[in-house]
Every structure is written in structure tokens, then in C-alpha cells.
């Protein structure tokens, strides 16, 4: 201890940096191990089908309104922006194609995932965190049921399955939002708009968005489960877990979006 105390004050920033780096590495390791355990529980029996269906409803079905609303307004705003911006170099007519591309490749999956991060990741963290605080997770273990299989795996699987479906809905509604603005306000021909959109889009545009959505779904559920499962300190700890789940989900969604876009752009 004496030697540590004797470290000159000028080295304090380096010491802090070292501590932060070690803490970050520990967190990455802990999340990585948690994710691997979750994937193993997802892929190997026993499976809890009832829990999976319940989570599919909670994560997928009940997120439809918020994802739909977000998509229609985003599609409409995107359409307007592209039309206005495109007008600066006489390219207004590419609006349908750009809206479709932007929604399917980027905004559909990212916005659906962000809505899920706010709605679902927080709810998962709060629910599992409260179960941790009230010893329900310990109780589950003593009842010969692995909480990873009963709580974590169904949520991970449901989010991985539900987010691509929500993204399809977001894509359709987002494109419809652009169409609505184009036809009602900007004077586009409705049939031509749809024909141009359909002719321009390639399967890879939609598929890349759906692959992104699966990854984002995993991230959203993983962050909710991890922060809830490791919550400490009663109600305050649960609150902290909820905040961390939402913030870390959002950051990881953006980071993985960039990485996946790079991969798809190269492919």
C-alpha cells in the first residue's frame, strides 16, 4: 500500500485511466460471458415455450403501435427532406427510391430497435432487477429451474425473432409515410411512386435491414437481461439497471449498425 500511496500525484490521471480500462475490460468480459450463457441456453433444451410466446407478445406484438407511429412520421419527414434537398440539384424525382433505401437499409431497423430499447430493454431490466431484489431469482434456482433458461433465453430468442418482423412493419409503414407526403403534398403520381420504389429496391436492401434487426434485437434483450440480472441495491439498483440497459442498448445499436453497414457495403 505504501508504494501505491507514494506514486507521484502527477501520475494520478494514468492511474485513473488504468482503473477505468480495467473496469471496462471486466464489464466487457462479464457481458460476453453472460451473452454466451444466454445463447447456450437458447440453443439447448429444456426450452420454455410458454415463456417464449409470452415474450414474443410482450416484445413484438405490443411494440407494434410505437414502431408504426415512429415509422410513418420518419418516412414522411425523410420524404420531405429528400425532396427539398434534391430540389437543389433538380433531383426531386429520386425521392421514392431514396426513401425506400433509407428506410429499409437504415432507419427501419435502427428506429424499431431504438423504440424497443426504450420500451423493452428498460422493462426487462426492471422486471428481472426487481426479481433479483426480492430473491425471486434465488427462489427459482432452489426450485430446480435455471433462471437463464426461464428468464434470459426466452427474452433473447423473442427479441431476435420479433425485431425483424417489427422492421418489416416499420419498412412498409415508413415507405407509406413517404408515399403519403409525396402524393398528398408534393404532387407525385401514386402509381408511379410505388412502381419506382418497387423497381429500385433489391432483395439485399431488405435482407440487410432484417439481419441488422436480428442483431439489434439480441442487443436490446441482452442489455435488459444483463443489467437486470446483475442489479444490486434494491429499488435504487433497479432504477440504475433500467437506465444502463437503455443507454447501453442505444450505444451498442449505433455501434453495431456502423459495423454491419460496413460489412454489407463491402459485400
Amino acid at each position, binding site marked *: 500500500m505504501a508504494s501505491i500511496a507514494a506514486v507521484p500525484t502527477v501520475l494520478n490521471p494514468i492511474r485513473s485511466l488504468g482503473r477505468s480500462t480495467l473496469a471496462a475490460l471486466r464489464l466487457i468480459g462479464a457481458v460476453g460471458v453472460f451473452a454466451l450463457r444466454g445463447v447456450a441456453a437458447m440453443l439447448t433444451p429444456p426450452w*420454455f415455450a410458454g415463456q417464449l410466446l409470452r415474450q414474443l407478445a410482450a416484445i413484438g406484438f405490443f411494440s407494434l403501435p410505437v414502431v408504426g407511429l415512429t415509422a410513418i412520421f420518419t418516412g414522411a419527414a425523410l420524404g420531405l427532406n429528400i425532396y427539398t434537398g434534391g430540389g437543389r440539384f433538380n433531383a426531386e424525382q429520386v425521392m421514392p427510391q431514396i426513401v425506400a433505401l433509407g428506410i429499409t437499409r437504415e432507419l427501419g431497423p435502427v428506429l424499431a430497435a431504438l423504440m424497443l430499447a426504450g420500451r423493452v430493454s428498460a422493462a426487462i431490466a426492471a422486471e428481472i432487477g*426487481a*426479481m433479483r431484489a*426480492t*430473491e*425471486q431469482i*434465488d*427462489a*427459482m*434456482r*432452489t*426450485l*430446480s*429451474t435455471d433462471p437463464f433458461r*426461464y428468464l434470459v433465453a426466452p427474452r433473447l430468442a423473442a427479441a431476435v425473432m420479433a425485431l425483424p418482423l417489427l422492421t418489416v412493419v416499420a419498412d412498409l409503414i415508413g415507405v407509406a409515410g413517404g408515399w403519403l407526403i409525396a402524393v398528398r403534398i408534393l404532387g407525385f403520381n401514386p402509381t408511379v411512386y410505388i412502381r419506382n420504389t418497387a423497381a429500385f429496391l433489391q432483395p439485399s436492401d431488405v435482407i440487410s435491414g432484417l439481419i441488422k434487426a436480428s442483431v439489434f434485437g439480441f442487443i436490446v434483450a441482452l442489455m435488459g437481461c444483463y443489467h437486470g440480472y446483475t442489479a444490486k441495491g434494491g429499488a435504487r439498483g433497479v432504477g440504475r439497471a433500467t437506465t444502463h440497459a437503455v443507454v447501453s442498448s442505444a450505444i451498442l445499436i449505433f455501434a453495431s449498425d456502423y459495423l454491419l453497414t460496413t460489412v454489407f457495403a463491402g459485400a
Partner: protein
Amino acid sequence: MNQDLPKLAWKGVSKRFDGAPVLDGLNLDVAAGRSLVIIGGSGQGKSVTIKVAMGLMGVDAGEVLVDGQNLVGQGGASLRGLFSRIGVLFQGAALFDSLSVWENIAFRLINADGVPRQAARARAIEALGRVRLAPSVADLFPSELSGGMQKRVGLARAVIADPEMLFFDEPTTGLDPITAAAINELIVDQVKRLGCTAVSITHDLASARTIGDEIAMLHGGKIVWRGPPADLDSADNPYVRQFVEGRPDGPMNTAV
């Protein structure tokens, strides 16, 4: 099985949190079919003592032996084997909020033992009767129950699979004296019915006297006194004296 072998034993068990010792070479055992109650002040390691015995927490040193088999360092299969033999009544009952009363009671039967839901429901309602709750309670949710009813449901859940060992974590905390007496009576009934080994922790001396064949006092991470409930009042151990008399001044005060 060797009849002299304790059902459950802690041998030199130590556990620290953030460097502070909570259990300090704890030695304790309980014979098969006996009911041991651990008493002690707050923060003396009672919960940690039963959590390490339930396989919910690791130890820094020592052994936790069930039927002579050391649990420490054992992996999933051994712990699953242990969990299939124990029942636990948690301090706050720890009922699953999202499940009905009968689904809570039958949780192990449905999810671990593969019992069909209808049969599991019938057994859950039978277990409700054993803790003197009406079948109409079966479809309620935990949030609709009083604290005493939650404890009864927790007890029904703990005993439904006829465990070899029962653990009670502060079974009467937060209950009025009449409800607490009823819970104590139910615990005694169920332990006798199953003929199982029981370990309880409590601050409640009335509860300790009712449910224990033996009482052990934990202080500073060690057992400082052990004896039958009848000897509690006449014990000359200063820690026991202070605890029984409920005096704020004494060795426990200075030690804490």
C-alpha cells in the same frame, strides 16, 4: 447411510464481503430429522450461513457438507441435485409476481419435474389445504395476498415436492404475533409430516423456541452458543443473555 453423519455441516466456513469477514471459520452441523434454529443480531451472517448451505453463494474457505458430500466448488449437476432435495421459505416469500398462487406452488412440478399442468394444479390446491388456505386462493396473484398468506403460499411451495431439507429465512419477520404463531405452527407441522431436516434463521425468539429442536447463536461469524430451546433462558453466555434480554449494552454492542 451412516447414522452418525450429520445431514448438513459447515466446516471451517469463511466468507468475506469487500474484505470484511462475515463468516469466520464457522463450524456447525445438524443431524437428520432435526430442526436447528440460528439466532443472532443483524449483520452477523445468518442469511449468508443458510445461503451457502443452499448452494446460492460460494465460500472463501471451508466445506459445506450435505450427507458428507462437499458442495463447495461443485458445478451445475451437483447443485441441481441439491436443489431437488431442498425446500426454501424466503424472508419475503419471494413469490413470482407474474404467476398465480397455484402456479407459484406448482412451479417446480411444472418446470423441473414435467408434471402436467392439471395434475400440478391439483397438487398445488392440496398443498394449499396443508397450509390452511382455501382452494379459492389458488387463482389469485401474490399482490392480492396479505403478508401472512404470502408466507403460507411460500411454505406450500417449499414443501410440495417433499424435500429432505427445509430452510426458513426469517419466517415470521413482518408478521403480527398471531399470524407469526400460526406460521410457526405450520412450520412445525410440515417439518414433522415430512420428517425432514430443517434449518431456520430468525431474530424472533418465540419463533425459535417453537420451531427449533436446537438453537445456535451466531456472532462475529462463529457459533457462540448452542443448546436446546429450554436452556436459552438459563444460558450464562453473555451474548445469549444480552440477546434474550434485548439489552442495547453488552458484548454484542462492543463487538459490532
